[in-house]
């Protein structure tokens, strides 16, 4: 337990909408060890991005605790939060929207240093920007270009450099490669892996693409409609998925190989609405194995083997 960097306890985020309360994140808890990578996987609308933002308090959580380095950050005031931002950063999905189109590369990367008054001196800051650009593999000559002049991969490198500028400990990556082409995706994934090794970073890797996290993460948490339904070390999760949704999700990935075909578990229907969810298991409507109990009683996340947590009634025989 001593090396836990982040502990999320009963995190909730509800939004009030005209149709009712939207349960974007509903009672999510997990712990994360220093230097490790947690993958959070789920389909659109499952609350994975909201979870990431609520941990950083970019969105105020409705309830729950986020304990970072032993301190509950949900209780920090504005000034304390500002200092904490140095420790935890976010890498965005869209390398087009996440960079201010009116700022040059050096302004974007230098902004956190300037804002946080880490390096007030402009000359030294420029040096540090150079250094960061080198770290993420951006050529020096790009320093005064604008984001729109660069391709997606380079833009994403700028985003990574900006996140690294303050030497954070925890980086939440929100689908950092899903907007990129395959060959560029691999370049960025390798870069992120190298950075983790060099700097001892801890990642939370949010994605819809199970093959990416499998490659990257130590642990994987699967979310469905705002809830964590299965969490396990990635080896276990891939070899022995227990929750019916995880099974379906795994089998739905198109495999770029002619030999290793997985047995398809085809799901019926689509994700239901997270607004005023009905009691019972949220996956029950689509679950091929759902029983009456599933439709009335919400399953709890239980540890079925070491480090393997599942929220499904069918596992508790």
């Amino acid at each position, binding site marked *: 337990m001593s090396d836990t960097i982040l502990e999320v306890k009963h995190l909730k985020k509800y939004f009030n909408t005209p149709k009712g309360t939207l349960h974007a994140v509903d009672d999510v808890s997990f712990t994360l060890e220093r230097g490790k990578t947690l993958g959070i996987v789920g389909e659109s609308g499952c609350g994975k991005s909201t979870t990431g933002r609520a941990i950083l308090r970019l969105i105020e959580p409705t309830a729950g605790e986020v304990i970072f380095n032993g301190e509950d950050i949900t209780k920090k005031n504005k000034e304390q939060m500002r200092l904490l931002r140095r420790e935890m950063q976010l890498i965005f999905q869209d390398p087009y929207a996440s960079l201010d189109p009116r700022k040059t590369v050096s302004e974007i990367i230098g902004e956190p240093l300037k804002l946080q008054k880490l390096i007030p001196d402009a000359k030294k800051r420029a040096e540090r920007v150079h250094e960061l650009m080198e770290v993420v593999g951006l050529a020096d000559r790009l320093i005064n270009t604008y984001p729109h002049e660069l391709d997606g991969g380079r833009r994403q490198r700028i985003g990574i450099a900006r996140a690294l500028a303050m030497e954070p400990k925890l980086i939440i990556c929100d689908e950092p490669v899903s907007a990129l082409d395959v060959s560029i995706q*691999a370049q960025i994934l*390798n870069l992120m892996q190298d950075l983790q090794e060099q700097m001892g970073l801890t990642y939370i890797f949010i994605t819809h693409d199970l093959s990416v996290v499998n490659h990257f993460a130590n642990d994987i948490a699967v979310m469905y409609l705002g809830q964590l339904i299965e969490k396990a070390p990635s080896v276990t999760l891939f070899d022995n998925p227990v929750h019916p949704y995880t099974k*379906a999700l795994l089998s*739905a990935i*198109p495999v770029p*190989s002619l030999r*290793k075909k997985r047995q*398809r578990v085809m799901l019926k229907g*689509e*994700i239901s609405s997270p607004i005023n969810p009905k009691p019972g298991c949220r996956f029950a409507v689509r679950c091929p194995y759902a029983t009456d109990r599933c439709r009335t009683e919400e399953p709890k996340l239980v540890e079925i083997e070491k480090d393997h947590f599942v929220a499904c009634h069918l596992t508790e025989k």
Partner: protein
Amino acid sequence: MAENKKDLILDIKDLVIHYETDDGTVEAVNGLDIQLEYGKTLGLVGETGSGKTTTALSILRLVPDPPGVIKNGSITLDGKDILNLPQKDLESIRGNLVSMIFQDPMTSLNPVLTVGEQIAEVIGLHENISEKEAADKAGQMLEVVGIPKERYGEYPHQFSGGMKQRVVIAMALACNPKLLIADEPTTALDVTIQAQVLETMKELREKFGSAMIMITHDLGIIAEVCDEVSVVYAGQIVEHGTLEDVFERTLHPYTEGLFGSLPNIEERRHRLQPIPGLMPDPTDLPKGCCFAPRCKYCTEACTKARPEMKWVSDTHYVRCSRYDEPGFKIERSVQ
């Protein structure tokens, strides 16, 4: 290659398409060939800007002009010379003989018409039947793609992404086209929904017997639905063959690079082998092989001349000069 032309639904020869803009000429498609038989499915794989979508649009002659100019080549679709067809004939072909499914289902439906009306409209345009009959047929088409007929009167915003894409597919198939072009039809969808939609598409292809061109960047989808694959790079097909040819007997270094870039579900935590560098600037393509600057097998000769098409079997060809050398092999091997 010089097979009997009669069983080809689509025959594209040496197609060259440029976009002429103020900033220079974008060489989008540079000598591309496609031969597709009736009822077969061809996968076009390539990255952003490789010219796959431009090629698809040219089959319907929908390349925006200006700035798009078809410089060279011929497109023969079901025996018709598309590039020399009058506008009126083209209109009757689109949606009837050939139809297209676009990437984003959200923008390809009209928000103020019900989904049923939109399908019926397509049918009404191409078939000489009464409104009532068209509506009936539209209802049937909805059922075919797995949407209950009762939702005929609903508007697109009442449907989820996957359902909308089904509506788009229903529209595309409504007139029983001989060729269906699907441009990244599932990219905007979630994995489990993607699996459903792909399954539907496969079933329908069987049922209607349409030929299909599947444009995608995802080799996994190719493996699932296609018979043949063409790998596109900088507006040219660098490797073409059957699924087995391309996946198991890979020849081109770019194809190898694509496979190396993919995180593999089966092999955990191995390091990815990305292709270094970037796609060449389409306004300033290299003189020699377009892939040469990124290729680890590149030699002096590769930078001098564009490689020719080289057939290694009846079904499989590659554009790579290194295969002129006897005994040249790339590293990839399929265990």
